[in-house]
């Protein structure tokens, strides 16, 4: 098992080295400032940006750390609000098959709409680009959690609900001792899908609204033709995405139960 793992890591690192080598070789002939930058140039930029991630020289010149913090702040507000609403609604839908069937067509219609398509409506109605971006995050992380919670609650074994009924547990006690723990694996699976799509949406939303955030940073660096910064930002965005997913992955292992 351990040997297997070591071999997997070896192969992965080897693949990365081969990729970086080809990349570096293919841009070797380019003059500085022309064509795509190579990995060495990107690494230099990364080192520079990471040396001082939190500087603030006015609206168009902030450190990468500040950009990520402002994106993560938006993500947190929109995602947490959406998750609370989705879990709450999902519990109701999951407990009532009638309600579920009545609401399901609307969920199916709303779910596939790109969250960014709401942006103009949000901008028009609330007249504030920052809040509009948060609402886009809200819309992007609502549906997976809602659908998964409803499914998870509906699939809780009838016996557990019968026990709760016999014990005459209050609505709240029933929720926290039976319904939420019973549906938890499905809920967390939904939360995990949601945070992925929210992180994807925030970058695009920030490109549109401007100001701060990692999406705006990428667009701004493109306008400055700083491709090394763009490439570094792409890698950093992916890294944060992986960390967010891993965090929820740990949570899901903790809440899993064997029947």
């Amino acid at each position, binding site marked *: 098992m351990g040997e297997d793992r070591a071999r997997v890591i070896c192969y992965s690192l080897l693949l990365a080295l081969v990729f970086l080598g080809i990349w570096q070789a293919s841009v070797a002939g380019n003059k500085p400032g022309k064509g795509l930058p190579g990995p060495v140039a990107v690494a230099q930029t990364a080192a520079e940006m990471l040396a001082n991630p939190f500087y603030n020289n006015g609206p168009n010149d902030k450190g990468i750390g500040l950009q990520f913090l402002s994106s993560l702040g938006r993500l947190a507000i929109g995602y947490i609000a959406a998750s609370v609403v989705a879990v709450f609604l999902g519990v109701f839908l999951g407990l009532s098959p009638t309600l579920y069937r009545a609401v399901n067509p609307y969920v199916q219609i709303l779910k596939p709409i790109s969250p960014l398509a709401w942006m103009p409506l949000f901008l028009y109605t609330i007249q504030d680009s920052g809040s509009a971006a948060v609402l886009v995050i809200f819309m992007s992380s609502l549906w997976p959690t809602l659908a998964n919670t409803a499914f998870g609650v509906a699939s809780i074994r009838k016996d557990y609900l*019968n026990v709760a*009924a*016999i014990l*005459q547990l209050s609505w709240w006690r029933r929720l926290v*001792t*039976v319904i939420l723990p*019973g549906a938890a694996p499905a809920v967390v699976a939904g939360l995990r899908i949601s945070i992925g799509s929210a992180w994807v949406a925030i970058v695009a939303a920030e490109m549109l609204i401007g100001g701060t955030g990692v999406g705006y940073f990428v667009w701004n660096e493109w306008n400055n033709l700083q491709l090394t910064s763009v490439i570094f930002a792409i890698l950093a965005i992916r890294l944060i995405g992986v960390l967010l997913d891993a965090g929820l992955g740990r949570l899901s292992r903790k809440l899993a*139960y*064997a*029947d």
Partner: protein
Amino acid sequence: MAFLEIDHVSKTFPAPDGRGHVTVFRDVAFGLAEGEFLTMVGHSGCGKSTLLNIIAGLEQPSAGGVVLEGREIVGPGIDRMVVFQNFALMPWLSVFENVRVAVRAARPTWSTAQIAAWVQRYVDMVGLTGAEKKRPAALSGGMRQRVGLARAFSTEPKVPLLDEPFAQIDALTRGVIQDELVRMWTASRNTVFMVTHDVDEAILLSDRIALMTAGPDVRLAEIIEVKIPRPRTRAELIDDPEYLRLRTHILHFLMEVGRRSPVQDELAATTGRTATLKR
């Protein structure tokens, strides 16, 4: 009026083909005196578990009703805690927590320390000391049902309802847990309603045994009294002439009602399936 009165209860389901109704059982009427242990024995599909669910308040009778201490049962309640055939322990809670949920619900005014002490008492009583922090998935079937019994009896229900509690437990363990149930019941002297198809189990535990005919359209055939003095042990029962007489009587009865035409058998099988699904 008896302590627990089953008053001419009938249960029908809509027929699978959508036309009319299938009667599971009809006009079942008997009473349990306070402190009495009554067991219902019948073929699978005779609706005995359905009747237990009706007493629990989890299902509604199609006609008739159930009266406990002079009040009609309209829904589930903690005074009629069920021990389930498939245990129905919350898999995300530990042994201790599974029992604690019930005690906390039964004794809302108690302090946390009081509740914990009470839970520990019942966990010890069923021999699970040391396994308090384990989840049900880590336990054998026998140990799980011990938790089920501790959970039910720790709430001191007026009428514990036992729904084939030992059906999924291997024969050797079954005997040990039956002895534990006898001990717990002797201490509490609750009124108990149990459903089983294990004749020996019924005789060992019961004051009276209700026999159901085979399905469809099941009736209560007879109620026989078990006059073997308590305390009873399985070892002593084997040689008791009264035990042998009752056992033969019940087995003959079950074989008699089981001897039906193939058409009836098929009907019984289909309604039986409907009844189990509804459970």
